[in-house]
């Protein structure tokens, strides 16, 4: 219907964005009626997301003509931004940004480097940046889930952890059950995506490839390739971040630093 009113692609895009945003607004209103206030956080996130993606889209126009090495700089900047976003989910955990940035850099970075060197990801900037960003974004989500779950599990089990410490347990071992649970929880979205691929959803990348004329079977296989890479980079990121974070919630004298209200 919108196409009847908007003939330029840009106008149509903004109109579509507005309609999609309105549906989100309905959710906010429904949540508000139940006493859940998401207004400011959601509105800021939506405006921010729109501005960011338009900015990146504009940069991509320039980058299409840029040398290949610039994709490295762009991906590095994405990793730093992902680390900062993820660290907000780990309030009270010391050095959360450093842990998140390193985990995403090693987790997503190593898979991107390996897959690019093996030819699974094309080195062309138009391929490396979008696919790389997908891996980084999913690694960021896994990292956020892992840190958030670890934080809440530790806060919910302070008594058990300090009892283990009081009995002479090594600090890192006293939080082992929560490290494991956080790692498992962080991988649920990646596993579910793989499990439901093609049945529950046909991801955007495959749809894009089909629209640009790729053979359907190759587009389907490549979508699986991307999801497998997402699983690998997300898993590696969560593994690294949970390994790094477990020691950081303790002081050098093996005292639990993560306490409510501190």
């Amino acid at each position, binding site marked *: 219907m919108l196409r009847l009113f908007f003939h330029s692609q840009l106008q149509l895009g903004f109109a579509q964005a507005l309609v999609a945003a309105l549906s989100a607004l309905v959710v906010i209103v429904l949540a508000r009626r139940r006493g859940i206030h998401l207004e400011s956080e959601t509105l800021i996130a939506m405006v921010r997301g729109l501005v960011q993606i338009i900015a990146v889209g504009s940069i991509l126009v320039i980058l299409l003509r840029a040398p290949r090495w610039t994709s490295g700089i762009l991906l590095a900047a994405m990793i730093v931004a992902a680390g900062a976003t993820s660290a907000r989910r780990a309030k009270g955990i010391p050095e959360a940004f450093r842990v998140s940035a390193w985990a995403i850099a090693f987790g997503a970075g190593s898979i991107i480097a390996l897959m690019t060197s093996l030819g699974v990801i094309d080195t062309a900037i138009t391929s490396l940046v979008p696919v790389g960003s997908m891996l980084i974004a999913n690694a960021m989500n896994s990292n956020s889930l892992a840190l958030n779950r670890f934080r809440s599990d530790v806060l919910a089990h302070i008594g058990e952890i300090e009892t*283990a410490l*009081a*009995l002479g*347990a090594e600090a890192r071992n006293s939080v082992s059950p929560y490290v494991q649970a956080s790692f498992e929880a962080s991988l649920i979205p990646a596993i579910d995506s793989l499990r439901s691929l093609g049945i529950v959803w046909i991801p955007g990348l495959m749809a894009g490839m089909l629209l640009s004329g790729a053979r359907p079977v190759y587009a389907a296989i490549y979508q699986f390739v991307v999801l497998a890479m997402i699983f690998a980079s997300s898993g590696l990121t969560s593994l690294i971040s949970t390994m790094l974070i477990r020691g950081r919630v303790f*002081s050098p*004298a093996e*005292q639990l630093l993560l306490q409510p209200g*501190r």
Partner: protein
Amino acid sequence: MSIPPISSVVLRAEHLGRTVHDKILIQDASFELQKGGVLAITGPSGSGKTSLLRLLNRLDEPTSGIVFVEGVDYRHIEPRELRRKLGMVTQRPYLFPGSVADNLRFGPAQRGETLPPKTIEELLAQVGLKDYAGRDVANLSGGEAQRVSVARTLANSPLALLLDEPTSALDDTAKLEVESAIQKVVRGQGLTCVMVTHDVAQAMRLASRALVVENGRIVRAGPVGEVLRA
């Protein structure tokens, strides 16, 4: 040449304090405890009793002052070894999932030691829980769980016991059971003990000396009868 007498002071706190975000939890706490002595720390809720106890086994870091364990500055003792020496029993037992015996084995296992079944039986007998070794901790009553917690701490062969209101979460019957188990262990083994309690009658029954803490400061200290009758 005369040999200097070996001090029988097990625990000595000097000007101990902890402040978090400008809030004074404990200030200028000094006391000492002889071997075999039982010290009760009493005072109103929120006065800083538990905060003081947590400084003794370094679960929290003092922001001032120092603790000596058998004359040694406790910062020179590895934290895990310090906590083994000063065994703590918390208000709630926080038993680990598994059997009673699994819980008793936990402490020694942290040092790579295996607790023999005979020792497990002896420890459980001391707290009145003979033949409980194989029971699942999920099926224990509150009083039984707390007694397992005492036995689990004793399994580490501590130099002194730190008891943080070990009976406050229990009903009257269970409270008496746990108190009697503690009394038997402390008196029977001559264990040095620091006990936080808001129950003055319990302090009178178990302790030889007492401290009263108010607003983070020790306001009275001395023999239990003199301090708590004041």
